[in-house]
């Protein structure tokens, strides 16, 4: 039961007293200028160290360490696989697959550009969890979905880059494709919800992933250049406007709302008092060269752990305090975010529910020009991918 709870909730709940929770919540929910325990601004990330290509045997790899000591390693391996077609009605079948798969190769849904989502396989290992526990399964599906859901772009000349997104990139020809194995390894205990760490590391690893250069043409059996130095990045290095890469793997960010405030890169304690926890996947989606900000791929709500915390008891209900003069401030107020009646200073577990405007605010902060999303992508780009 406890592992079940652990798995489904955002993280283990830190052992904080209702009073501490209440204090934290109050300071984070201060209108417009929340005060975070570590003094960061709401959109500021903790420092992290990152490097790529740490595993020579993989096609691409990365390591990221957060300041709180959590670390993750991601390795990407690619394998050539035969595309299994059921019958001779090859084209029809494939077409159906390509379009039927929805998010994938629509728009340019010729059989060749469509790939299949199952070609990307992701496994996450988190210490203390079995690989069929809910958390790793949920996390990997969440990240995989945004990966295979991302679509490609057209550059100025109208030529397609990454047509069909990652899935499309994996197609070699009608009969052959690459299969990607993304192995994510969390090296430390999951102190906070590990999603952002794992997502960033995966992003970096994919960015450094190369596939051997194809020498054969068309529908021939694939035949590759044996020189690794000429291998090609899976996400091509096409520089767009303002020297940023045009095509990027998606990134999933964890955002919480406390009161009306939107807070990025939350610590474990901050998550414990969050009203809502969202996992927002974004990717860069440029069309026709104009630097369109970012594209939202998915939003998932994550069960906030705060509902499982012990509630504080207002003096008015405290048997020990019976008869004591009721102070003024003990009057119930309405929480602006949830619309619930609350007694200030007394912790009351969140019952879920968040205003639409708050959600909109969260998405906007991520996507807007010069917003957090861009900042994160730029930061990751700064990691020298060699």
């Amino acid at each position: 039961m406890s592992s079940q709870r652990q798995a489904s909730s955002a993280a283990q709940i830190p052992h904080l007293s209702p009073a501490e929770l209440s204090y934290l919540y109050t300071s984070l929910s201060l209108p417009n200028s929340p005060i975070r325990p570590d003094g960061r601004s709401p959109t500021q990330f903790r420092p992290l160290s990152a490097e790529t290509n740490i595993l020579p045997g993989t096609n691409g790899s990365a390591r990221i360490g957060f300041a709180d000591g959590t670390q993750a390693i991601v390795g990407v391996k690619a394998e050539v696989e035969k595309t299994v077609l059921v019958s001779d009605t090859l084209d029809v079948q494939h077409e159906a697959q390509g379009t039927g798969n929805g998010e994938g190769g629509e728009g340019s849904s010729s059989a060749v550009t469509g790939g299949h989502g199952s070609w990307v396989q992701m496994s996450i290992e988190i210490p203390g969890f079995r690989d069929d526990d809910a958390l790793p399964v949920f996390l990997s599906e969440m990240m995989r979905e945004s990966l295979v859901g991302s679509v490609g772009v057209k550059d100025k000349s109208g030529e397609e880059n990454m047509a069909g997104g990652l899935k499309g990139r994996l197609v070699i020809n009608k009969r052959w494709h690459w299969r990607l194995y993304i192995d994510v390894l969390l090296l430390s205990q999951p102190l906070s919800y590990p999603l952002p760490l794992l997502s960033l590391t995966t992003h970096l690893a994919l960015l450094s992933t190369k596939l051997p250069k194809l020498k054969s043409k068309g529908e021939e059996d694939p035949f590759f250049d044996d020189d690794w130095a000429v291998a090609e990045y899976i996400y091509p290095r096409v520089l767009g406007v303002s020297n940023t890469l045009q095509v990027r793997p998606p990134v999933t960010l964890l955002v919480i709302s406390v009161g009306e405030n939107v807070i990025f890169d939350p610590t474990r304690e901050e998550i414990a008092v969050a009203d809502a926890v969202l996992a927002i996947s974004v990717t860069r989606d440029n069309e026709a060269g104009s630097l369109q900000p970012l594209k939202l791929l998915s939003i998932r709500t994550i069960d906030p752990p705060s509902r499982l915390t012990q509630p504080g008891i207002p003096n008015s209900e405290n048997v020990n305090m019976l008869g004591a003069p009721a102070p003024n401030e003990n009057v119930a107020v309405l929480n602006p975010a949830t619309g619930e009646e609350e007694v200030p200073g007394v912790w009351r577990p969140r019952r879920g529910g968040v205003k639409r405007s708050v959600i909109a605010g969260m998405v906007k902060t991520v996507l807007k020009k010069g917003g957090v999303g861009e900042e994160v992508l730029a930061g990751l780009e700064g990691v020298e991918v060699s």
Partner: protein
Amino acid sequence: MKSLRRDVSSNPQAANVTSKVFVRSTKSGKVQKIVRELYLRQDIPCSSKLCSLCPSIAPADANGNIAPFVLSDRPAGTKAFPRGHYLVPDTNALLNGMDLFEHTGAFYDVIILQTVLEELRNQSLPLYNRLLSLIKTDEKRFYLFFNEFRLETHVRRGPEESINDRNDRAVRIVASWYSEHLKASSQKSKKEKSIPAIVVITDDKDSLRKAKEENVSALSLSDYVSGLEDSAKLLDMISEAREARDAKGSVRGQMFYPEYYSMSKIQTGLRAANLHQGVYNVSPYNYLEGSVNVPAFDKPLLILGRDNSNRAIAGDIVVIEVLPQDQWKSPSTKIVDEEAVTRNDNPDTEETEAVVTDRERKALQEEVKKAHGKHSEGKPQPTAKVVGVIKRNWRQYVGHVDSGSTGSQVASGRRQQTVFVLPMDKKVPKIRVRTRQAADLLGHRILVTIDAWDRDSRYPSGHFIRSLGELETKGAETEALLLEYDVQYKPFPKSVLDCLPSEGHDWKVPVSKEDKGWNGRRDLRDLLICSIDPPGCQDIDDALHARLLPNGNFEVGVHIADVSHFVKPHNPMDLEASVRGSTVYLVDKRIDMLPHLLGTDLCSLKPYVERYAFSVLWEVTPNAEIVSSDFTKSVIRSREAFSYEQAQLRIDDASQKDELTESMRNLLKFSKILRQKRYDAGALNLASPEVRIEADADEVGDPLADVKTKASLATNSLVEEFMLLANITVASKIFQSFSQTALLRRHATPPPQNFEDLINQLSKKRNMELDVSSSGALASSLDKCVDPKNPFFNTLVRILATRCMTSAEYFCAGAHAESEFRHYGLASPIYTHFTSPIRRYADLLVHRQLASAIGYEGEDGHAGLEGVATRSKLDDICRNINYRHRNAQFAGRASIEYYVGQALKARGEKMAAGGTDQGVDEEGYVMRVFENGAVVFVPRFGIEGVVRLEDFVLPGEAGAWSVTQRRELAPHRTTDFDPEEYTLRVEEKGHPEKERGVFVELFQKVKVNVSSVKEEGRGAGKRRVRVLITGSSDE
């Protein structure tokens, strides 16, 4: 967001650890990124005897010895490098000039880089092997320097640097490191020694330029060679491929041949079974017709014409594509000889060449006509074209310079010119060779190699390697033969001779039975054993005995020389024997598989002395039913060594009543029963056109008297039967013990379609039937193919039937299902070779397996089965011995053929003293009929002769015998060829009268005139055996 990157460069260990990354595509289609870590070291010596630093740092073996240094302290100098020099060749230099590096006149003190060696291996495995053997020999002083592992000379590939540039840079870095290293060491030793120059040999212009910038002395191969003495000769040995490469950039005339498909297209096609892969064979009668046997079809696919054969040379593994049905043709019914058709080609002019000359086109047109015949033989057959070459099987070819191609320039001395070399092997096209020594090479047997065959060249280009000597001298022709059949004929190296017993000829079976040599051996010295062999046989493999047992049964023993006692696995002698595979018998020479001492003395079961043997003993009933069999290592003493005739005489001599003779009589009796049983089981009695040559001829007599057809005595088959029995018994024993690795021999059942033509011919011409449903049926139907008027006819049919079959092969038991083990010819379910270990390596292996199967532990008690126990290794050995076995047979036959030719020539010369050479009149049999000639078999000499149009002597024709005279006859003749009746009528144009023509048909007995003639009109020519049909001898 900030990010940090760990700095690797601060790691002090980082400098000597590096890695090599590449992509590997496996056969199963996997594509892997491979990372190999490299640990760089500083103790790899420069191996120069001049160096005073390296001896102290070079790694030592367990005994504290360092490997001896290779490079001389006094290297040879040239004009450009008077103080001596070491050479550092790059890969291309070796590719283009391997023959130069092997030359004994120059190219000493060469530093071969690991980088170069590996690159060479990727580009050409044969050259790689040759380089390895060069490095192994001491006298040429080649040093393999592991530059990739030495810290100072390791080169990391730069960004966007091509792998070639990187390797070239590695070569230059090694060169500069060597010169600095030697300088440093000479300064340290304070001795005033002259430091040799380090000379890079490269043909890459870019590399030459960079070397100049980096102050490394570098020369192109030809520049370097020009500075040597005898440069004219050496320059010829530079490969032609280089010039072809150089010219690639410039447009050089039209492309004659279509381009090959890309590798990936070929792979896809092969997997999808649109394309097929197989070995390219060329018809011996028509050089424009090839065939490729592919697993997908029962019959080989035809490849007609140069366009379709697309630069494939006999033996290449090619990829072919089937042509559309409207291009299917029937196989040729014409003899087309390259020499005759393309006689007038000029090797120098490329521009006017067309791939298919008009003459060739005409020759092909004739064939298309034939395709419209109704008969099965005339039916068009699927044809194909070559679209790619998987593996070139080019080797060195023996040939001679086509005197016609040298033109009038012969006298012009040392000027370089292009000539054609005609290979001895008719299936190989002529090779264009550039040489400065054309005048000297005329009339010589020479060795050349093919370097390249580009799309824009009609003939392959190659280069001259060496001359074997004048045409028709015994030495040159014998060597040519050995080279042509890839027979190892060099004397045994010292390392092999070191493996011989130190006692030499004095070696004896130990007297004391306590000696370890007696371990596990049975004492069979008191048995009355004798050997029966051809006269003059020195390497006696086998001996026999038979004796009556108290229970009325007989004990029969076959004793085989115990070669495995002397040849231990994995020593140099064993390796050499496994490479040679078999002893090769030529008419006047024997190329041994094992050193003389073993083959003719220590192993040979000579009479009157004790010898180690491996014995197979049976208990048989008086009716030759086998009761039991037993195998043992033994010691025997042969009582007598008979020749077949001697044994026959002794058996037939009723007055001889001694035990030995009685035992031989018993053996003979048993052998007859065994033989009958074998035939009852369906064994074939096959014939091959064999003649024997007894070379001990005196000078005075008729040289042809030495040529004898093989006589068969009852004693021949006596020995043969028991050897077969021993082989079969041993085969089942080793298969029992080693179900996966037993070395066996099989003769696959030939597919019935192989016999189609022969069946057709027999039913048409003789109304006879050939039942090929089983070997037994074939044997009995062959017995019925008799022509009472023509006793040889049966043999002829047997010869033809043998050619329809596949050849027997060695294999290891795991390679085939048990039902496939069958030996078709012998009608035995299992078979191996056990009885001739002195002359066949397979038998030696079988001895080891049998020894292990019976638990023989050897002298020291632990005779392992190493080397015979792994499948893959055995497969390799089988492949080699099959190849060697075949080549040994070919070489033997070719040797006889050559000898017959020489005997005819000698006779001709003798006759010529008294008049003109009239040749020898003999009987011949028509084996094949073509539209413009026939193939005639002459049993007396065991030769097949192609009879061309001009070689038919028409009735009433004046005797004009010389080649030139006869050649002029050809254009005046016409033929009437009926492919369905296999008949050919030759007559003079405008004289259709019956009496003036010659009519030949298949299987006909004809009178022929055999002589050895010089190919006149083309200068110093070859000789060939000419067969003239002088008339039918049926009447």
